[in-house]
């Protein structure tokens, strides 16, 4: 069976969940081969995990050139690999970096691009949800191989242990790929909460939360349920919570098992980022709030009464 290249998303020496999802998907399409791109020594700590999820081969491109610039060098190395190996498909995470690499790869290979897919079958037919989750489309590449970015949380990762054989890649990057220099990379402490797009539980607060201090209520519920915290744009714009946690059309798209909306009206642009969540729960004091149209369970009430009671009840049950 032909190889399916899975471009590994990683951070701080750990494989991100979307990569395990992609390896799981890749096994349906061919033989999964992971591609790790980064600075010297980047691959070693990732190997066990990649093998655990079925990567029989790990291509390792390790060079300061892959780390010190925005995506162009990574795209160059990948393009060479695709040209040499003729894989059955190439999968990347539907993250900022994944999409950017994919865009460049599409141009380099003159290959169609399937962005933000939630499924891809053996015939190369991808499933995508568009327009704030209102429309489902199936699409296909008509030129080249299936090149897709995969939306995090679209499937459950399933282990399939293999021993990862490491194949070093030669990294020769020309100057036009080195035009955007990373001058500084700042890691902000983020605590123990799971990452928003990868979390299986997301608790979001909106304007109804009232102020930044009250977001503690949202965080408390998130921690009790092992979830991530999200926010509506109104909450972000009002300075209640930082922008990187915004859910919606101009924020993150999340697809968790459970999404809890607290004091969020459910505007269409907010739904755009959470509509594909498996179970949706809402607390809102306005019985007419549109969020109730999509909530599997809704409480019409004051979140300052409902949320503390819920937190207390969960603590009791633990």
């Amino acid at each position, binding site marked *: 069976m032909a190889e399916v290249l899975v471009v590994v998303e990683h951070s701080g020496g750990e494989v991100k969940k979307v990569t395990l999802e992609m390896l799981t998907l890749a096994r349906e399409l061919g033989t999964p081969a992971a591609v790790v791109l980064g600075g010297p020594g980047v691959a070693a700590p990732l190997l066990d995990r990649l093998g655990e999820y079925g990567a029989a081969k790990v291509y390792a491109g390790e060079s300061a050139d892959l780390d010190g610039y925005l995506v*162009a060098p990574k795209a160059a190395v990948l393009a060479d690999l695709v040209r040499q190996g003729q894989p059955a498909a190439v999968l990347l995470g539907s*993250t900022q970096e994944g*999409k*950017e690499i994919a*865009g460049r790869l599409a*141009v380099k290979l003159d*290959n*169609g*691009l399937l*962005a*933000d897919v939630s499924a891809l079958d053996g015939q190369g037919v991808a499933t995508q949800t*568009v327009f704030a989750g*209102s*429309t*489902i*489309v*199936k*699409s296909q*590449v*008509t030129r080249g191989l299936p090149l897709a970015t995969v939306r995090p949380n679209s499937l459950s990762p399933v282990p399939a242990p293999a021993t990862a054989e490491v194949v070093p890649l030669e990294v020769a990057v020309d100057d*036009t790929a080195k*035009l*955007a220099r*990373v*001058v*500084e*990379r*700042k*890691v*902000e402490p983020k605590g123990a909460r799971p990452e928003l797009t990868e979390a299986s*539980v997301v608790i979001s607060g909106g304007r109804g939360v009232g102020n930044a201090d009250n977001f503690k209520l949202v965080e408390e519920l998130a921690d009790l*349920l092992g979830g991530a915290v999200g926010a509506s744009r109104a909450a972000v714009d009002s300075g209640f919570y930082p*922008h*990187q946690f915004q859910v919606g059309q*101009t924020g993150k798209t999340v697809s968790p*098992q459970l999404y809890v909306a607290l004091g969020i009206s459910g505007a269409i642009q907010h739904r*755009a980022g959470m509509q594909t969540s498996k179970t949706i*729960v809402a*607390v809102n004091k306005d*019985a007419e709030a549109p969020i109730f*149209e*999509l*909530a*599997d*369970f809704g*409480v*019409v*009430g*004051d979140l300052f*009464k*409902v949320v*503390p*009671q*819920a*937190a*207390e*009840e*969960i603590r009791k*049950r*633990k």
Partner: protein
Amino acid sequence: MNIVVLVKQVPDSSAERSLRADDNTVDRGSASNVINEMDEYAIEEALRIQEAHGGEVTILTMGPASASESIRKALSMGPDRAVHVLDDALHGSCALSTSKVLAAALGTLSADLVLCGAESTDGRVQVMPHMLAERMGVAALTGARKLTVEGTALTIERQTDEGYEVVAATTPAIVSVWDTINEPRYPSFKGIMAAKKKPVQTLSLADLGVAASEVGAEGASSAVVEQHKRPPRAGGQKINDEGDGGAKLVEFLASEKFV
């Protein structure tokens, strides 16, 4: 510094949007058409750079005849002129073909800096700036929440999942901006009147030396083969809080095995 701002017309995201039944392309009749919101932030950023450093600001749009409304609206914010790539053959173009056409148009404009939105609300692909940079051999600084221009040196700050990064390049370059970068101005009455007289140049595919077979449905590198409306989520249970709303909520969560 000469700046070109890429502006895309999209169906209004607050309305019900759909794909056409006949050819699966975005139905531009189903919702009113507006400037892609993030592109307004790119226009604002261009105007601020022009105010500080001089030069000219040009709007570049590829889109159908109706896009001229968005072009006028963009010009009413303050840019000097616009270029509209308009050709019937463009209907149904994929992102890859769009980048080919925009790159060709940019080739006629010799900009020092190209600004665009980080993503469009209809496509949401976030790929255009890198596709263009790849074709043009210039730097792409994407997803800026802050942009600093000093002579030919450009520096951006961009949000990452881990924190943020600072990325630098020199002109010519493409910078895409996020909606956290600034607060776009509203067009003034004077601006709206002035926009009516600003030059809008129309370019066809022939003007750009791109063959019709390379774009549109014929030249597309990907195709929608099927579409259907997602069945609306059925609202589930809704209860009024009568002092036990929190407890009931947890009962529901427990029944779904979340606690």
